[in-house]
């Protein structure tokens, strides 16, 4: 009996050493550490600037940001601005994503056209799309179109390029296999090409999700009377630093939610990839 107990304690000792590491790796303590870091930063933000005599209009404290948020909610119709920016971002993302994917598949299936168009695609890809915003305002006026078009353009290219890349590196033997089975072209596209390009399409969408918020924000900054971008430029005019900070924070929230939505769809679709099982689900 005593001998048995002895061996259990002996084996338990190294187990405990390992368990700390196991907890760390299992992913429960990493989020806890992230949270602790956030609390630390917020505390430092609240108390350090006043200690060094930094005025509020340069760096407002966390409590100022909170108070401003409440004020904006009741006095500036914050919800309306937030919903406008969020819905326009999503709309721009969906439209840009659809157009980008369609163009990517079309060019992937038509290599001659791709060769003809590729220098222009490259040029447009490099051109800073947000710089077109004033131009679109000149063309379409102060309404929703300029920001929407900017967003569609911004989202369009990474998705186009990603899909095109997948179509270029497509395994020809897979296509040949399907051809040897006498599959129709439509079936080959739906059953081989489309799923094959899925990882690239989703990677493009992931980038697009974050870019969509940038597109909308620039559009709202340049000309508009609604949206978080408008609140930023309004706040800047009033020297209301808290307002600017709050609006930036909310824009980030929109971006994060969109990014998260795409990643969770991605994880669901790409479950068959070995890396998607452990690596991507942990954060």
């Amino acid at each position, binding site marked *: 009996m005593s001998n048995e107990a002895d061996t259990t304690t002996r084996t338990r000792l190294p187990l405990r050493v390992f368990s700390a590491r196991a907890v760390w790796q299992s992913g429960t303590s990493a989020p806890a550490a992230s949270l602790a870091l956030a609390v630390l930063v917020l505390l430092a933000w609240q108390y350090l600037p006043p200690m060094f005599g930094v005025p509020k209009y340069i760096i407002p404290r966390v409590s100022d940001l909170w108070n401003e948020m409440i004020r904006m909610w009741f006095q500036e119709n914050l919800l309306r601005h937030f919903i406008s920016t969020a819905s326009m971002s999503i709309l721009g993302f969906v439209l840009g994503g659809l157009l980008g994917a369609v163009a990517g598949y079309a060019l992937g299936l038509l290599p001659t056209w791709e060769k003809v168009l590729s220098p222009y695609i490259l040029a447009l890809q490099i051109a800073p799309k947000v710089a077109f915003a004033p131009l679109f305002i000149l063309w379409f006026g102060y309404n929703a179109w300029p920001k929407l078009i900017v967003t569609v353009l911004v989202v369009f290219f990474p998705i186009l390029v990603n899909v095109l890349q997948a179509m270029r590196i497509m395994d020809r033997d*897979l296509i*040949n*296999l*399907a*051809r*040897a*089975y006498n*599959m129709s072209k439509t*079936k080959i596209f739906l059953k081989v090409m489309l799923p094959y390009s899925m990882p690239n399409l989703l990677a493009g969408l992931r980038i697009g999700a974050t870019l969509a918020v940038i597109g909308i924000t620039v559009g709202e900054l340049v000309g508009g009377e609604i949206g978080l971008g408008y609140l930023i430029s309004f706040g800047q005019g009033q020297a209301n630093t808290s307002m600017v900070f709050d609006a930036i924070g909310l824009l980030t929230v929109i971006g994060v939610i969109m990014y998260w939505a795409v990643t969770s769809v991605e994880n669901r679709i790409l479950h*068959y990839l070995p890396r998607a099982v452990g690596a991507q689900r942990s954060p």
Partner: protein
Amino acid sequence: MFLYEQDPPVPSAKSNVLRFLDVARRFPGRTAGAPPFTAVRDLSFEVNESEFVSIVGPSGCGKSTLLNMIAGLDRPSEGTVSLHGVEVVGPNSSVGFMLQKDLLLPWRTVLHNVEFGLEARNMEAGARRERALQELKRCRITEFADRYPYQISGGQRQRAALARTLAIDPDVVLLDEPFSALDAQTKLILQKSFAGTIAVAGLTTLLITHDLSEAVAMSDRILVMSDGPGRIVDEIEVGLPDRDNPIARLAMPRATEIVKHLFHALHIDNRLDA
């Protein structure tokens, strides 16, 4: 045609399934004005019902060209390729081919991969599934039916690929070095597994390989191809028992002799470049 009358008649009780008649395939030169590149020429051979024929040859002798022409993915510049007496003019579902790469679709389970070839036909989903399960059983991978390709080993993946190839009930099975990416042990086990499945099903098979002992261990007949432009330079009747058990076959002294003969036929001993 006259040649056949003069030659002693070949005793072929079984009808031939696959037939190459004076086939040549040329590709246009790389640059404009360059002479066309001849991949294969003067190819004439037959593969009979339920026969297992191997083609060996140095790399670049046009083996893949030959395979594509049978699968209907490519057409000869001269001569004809025919299956059951019908000229091959395009992809047709009576040929099953399998490569060194398993070509399993990573987003499909093993079962759905086996169903892939059947999806080109107008087949009811239930019947398709039943057919695929039957094939999985024959290739002994039923237990992995619901796994994704990344979850199974290289040997299991090749067995799944064979199941997919056989699911369409091909008249002829083309194997393009299906074992060459595997480790030595898995290779032997898989060769035995394939040989057993093929023998039981009585499949007409054409195996393309670099591995001389593999050719001897598995086939009834071996065709030796030369390189640039590829043509058949030798033909060997293996004439050994135990076609369904390559490992037993390799232990026979006659097998070693044939391998040695092939070795010389391909001039491997005095080739410097590979």
